[in-house]
């Protein structure tokens, strides 16, 4: 067990280093943009004196490095400063929205991950059959269609023609959990359609790649039925690549859903980011980027750890 703890510790340390590097990139990229916050707040018509006074007030006359560490120290306590548009704390703007995004992502993931893996196992078992081909064509079609297009199709049928689910996924605090699930079903379904193909095909490919292994032939020659060969002998050795693809898709669910949020008017972090960029609300942009980066790193870390934990050679050292 000690070895695994050490491995995980190492990965975690590496993740922190990467996050630090990303924070540097995010901070200084924003610095490189023409115009600064003072300019943005005061507008084009501001006099140089006013600008200088504003900079002093906001601490912008300090060297960039000093401001970076100040920002980083704040970020560690989840204090990203104040929005320059509304003046409210950044966290109060994106905190709740990030939670909403997490909710939608989890909703989609809870549906998509089991479906993809079960489908992947079934198509691996029935490889080259009609079912395999149909599943491939359907999932490939859904992954190749732009997500807003899928979203509009779903709205057309599920809300306009059949009236089963609302097309507007606006949620508020007082809603019951069931109501939440009902209101956000269509955006979640859109996301499911987008991510299932990738995970299913990886599950199928990883399992089929193993079917040529001597231990699979051994299992067959022991009289093991085909489904058991796949589920018991192939799947346990196929987890590492599957977990990696799942993690990538989960990260996508959190960071890549701007279009879906916009179509369904869902109050997620993606929309907040778009708003902030168009209004040059730098503190909000920086905070959102850092949260996205942390999400990516955390999920990839989880995938690495998952791959390690499912490898018996590492789990049971000699």
């Amino acid at each position, binding site marked *: 067990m000690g070895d695994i703890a050490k491995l995980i510790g190492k990965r975690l340390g590496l993740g922190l280093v990467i996050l630090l590097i990303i924070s540097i990139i995010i901070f200084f990229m924003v610095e490189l943009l023409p115009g600064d916050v003072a300019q943005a707040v005061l507008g084009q018509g501001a006099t140089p004196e006013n600008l200088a006074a504003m900079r002093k007030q906001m601490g912008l006359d300090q060297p960039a490095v000093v401001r970076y560490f100040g920002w980083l120290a704040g970020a560690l306590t989840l204090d990203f400063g104040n929005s320059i548009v509304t003046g409210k704390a950044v966290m109060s703007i994106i905190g709740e929205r990030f939670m909403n995004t997490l909710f939608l992502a989890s909703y989609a993931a809870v549906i998509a991950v089991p479906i993809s893996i079960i489908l992947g196992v079934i198509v691996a078992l029935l490889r080259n059959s009609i079912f395999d081909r149909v599943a491939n064509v359907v999932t490939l079609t859904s992954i190749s269609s732009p997500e807003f297009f899928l979203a509009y199709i779903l709205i057309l049928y599920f809300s306009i023609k059949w009236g089963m689910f609302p097309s507007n996924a606006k949620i508020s605090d007082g809603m019951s959990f069931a109501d939440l699930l009902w209101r956000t079903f269509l955006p979640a379904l859109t996301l499911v359609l987008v991510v299932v193909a990738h995970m299913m095909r990886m599950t199928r490919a990883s399992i089929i790649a193993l*079917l*040529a*292994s*001597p*231990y699979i*032939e*051994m*299992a*067959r*020659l*022991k*009289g*093991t*039925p085909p489904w058991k060969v796949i589920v*018991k*002998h192939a799947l*346990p*050795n196929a987890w590492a690549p599957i977990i990696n693809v799942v993690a990538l898709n989960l990260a996508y669910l959190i960071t890549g859903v701007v279009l879906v949020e916009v179509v369904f008017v869902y109050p997620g972090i993606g929309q907040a980011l778009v708003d902030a960029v168009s209004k040059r609300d730098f503190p909000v942009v920086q905070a959102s980027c850092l949260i996205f980066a942390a999400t990516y790193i955390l999920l990839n870390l989880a995938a690495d750890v998952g791959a390690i934990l499912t490898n*018996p*050679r590492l789990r*049971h050292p*000699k």
Partner: protein
Amino acid sequence: MTKKKDVLLKIRNLRIEGYSNEHWVDIIKGVDLTLHRGEVMGLIGESGAGKSTIGAGAMGYARDGTRISEGSSVEFDGMELTTATESERRALRGNRIAYVAQSAAASFNPAHKIIDQHTEAPLHYRLQKRMEAQEDAMQLYEKLRLPHPHEIGFRYPHQVSGGQLQRAMTAMAMSCRPDLIIFDEPTTALDVTTQIEVLAAIRDIVDEYNTAAIYITHDLAVVAQMADTIKVLLKGEEVEEAPTEEMLDNPKEDYTKSLWAVRSFESPQRQRPKGEVPLISLQHIDAAYTAGPKILDDVSFDIYAGMTVAVVGESGSGKSTAARVITGLLPPQKGEVLFKGEPFTPDYRNRTKDELRQCQMIYQSADTSLNPKVRISEIIGRPAQFYSGLKGAALKNRVDELLDLIELEPALYYNRYPPELSGGQKQRIGIARALAAEPTFIICDEVTSALDQLVAEGILRLLDRLQNELNLAYMFITHDLATVRSIADEVVVMQQGKVVEQGPKDEMFQPPHHPYTDLLLSSVPEMDPNWLTTLLEERGVDNVGDAAAAKIAT
């Protein structure tokens, strides 16, 4: 020996086709086979003879990309397998017909404990409850003399050594007490010392339960120990079949005779020239891979110009590491390598072109050491160009000359690619590539172990001829003592990174030996069908294999 009782397996006109290049081609071309209860039949032949395919076919199983043709008949205990449904066939597998694969390390599922894989079939067929099946597994482990029989099954495959795994797999095949076991080269991947244990174990258990077996191997001496009858195969067809003793004493067909005669080649032994400095001299070498344990421990030996030194030992004994030190791939931690009495630059990156050319390598697997996408002319031409600066017509002449040297017609092979060649031809290209540098010294790393015996013999003869013509020195890394006997002038025996014994070949094959050399020599199977029985009587069952090697090491 033969127990002529009722027929268990009757194969008639077995034809199996394989799919290649969008055509179905016959791999097995009408083989008949009759096996009685409790009888052991050896199937031998070179690679491509179709031994394993027949073995699988005896279970009614066609590997992916193959199919059993119409008109074939495989009758197991009165049941016709070729017309049976898949689930009827499956119900026999693991239950009444079991399979033991070549590489236990690859054939045990890394994700499950050994005992869980062992009990899978008995549980699936509801022959035993889990606890009973586990109890039974432990008893089988004990019978097969596995260490800690009550505990070893609860380990994962990678936690157990290769020889032990192979015995565990034999135990697994026994789990449902089948009527027939197919052994598919069960000891080919093992060291000779380990092989004995496995052979003894298989023979005991097959005798005890009166199980019939098909024993597939390319090693004649092994099959002589195991089988009641031997069937010789060539390219999917039967050559001949006879009881073991008769087959060994009096083979009828020319092909069989040629197989038997393989071990006849022996190059005359050369003696060290007096008063000369050795070409290569290893002096008290210690070596290790980064931060790992010491792989070589105070290793010293000399190789003289024009002579062959065979370095023998089990896997992990440090043979290949010694070669890496000489080539400069792994600079030693202590000690030095001398070339003609002068220090040889330790790291290959700092060696001059002339130093680099002196020492070339030929690898075990010609398949992976030749780039499949590069023409033969370029594979051989590159080193000629690099070391000798040849260009244009001079380069082409040199490549032709090299192809002549390795007995391949230049016009035919000049423009071909490695995948178009046979295993033996590829290995010849590997030799030509080494010769292109005009070396004085060549390291041959298990160059014949991936080849069939007849082909291997051709390679050995070629190497011997080249040595005489070009005055080459060889370091021959091998675990096959028959190869040592046929080509070596001197022998170095290594165990666990140390040289335990060295000397001229004739002395090494005469007692007295270091106990490890003795163990190694006595572990090499001989053609005599009573060899294993005699050896076990002489040494005792606990004094062979890993156990004996471990005793010597401490």
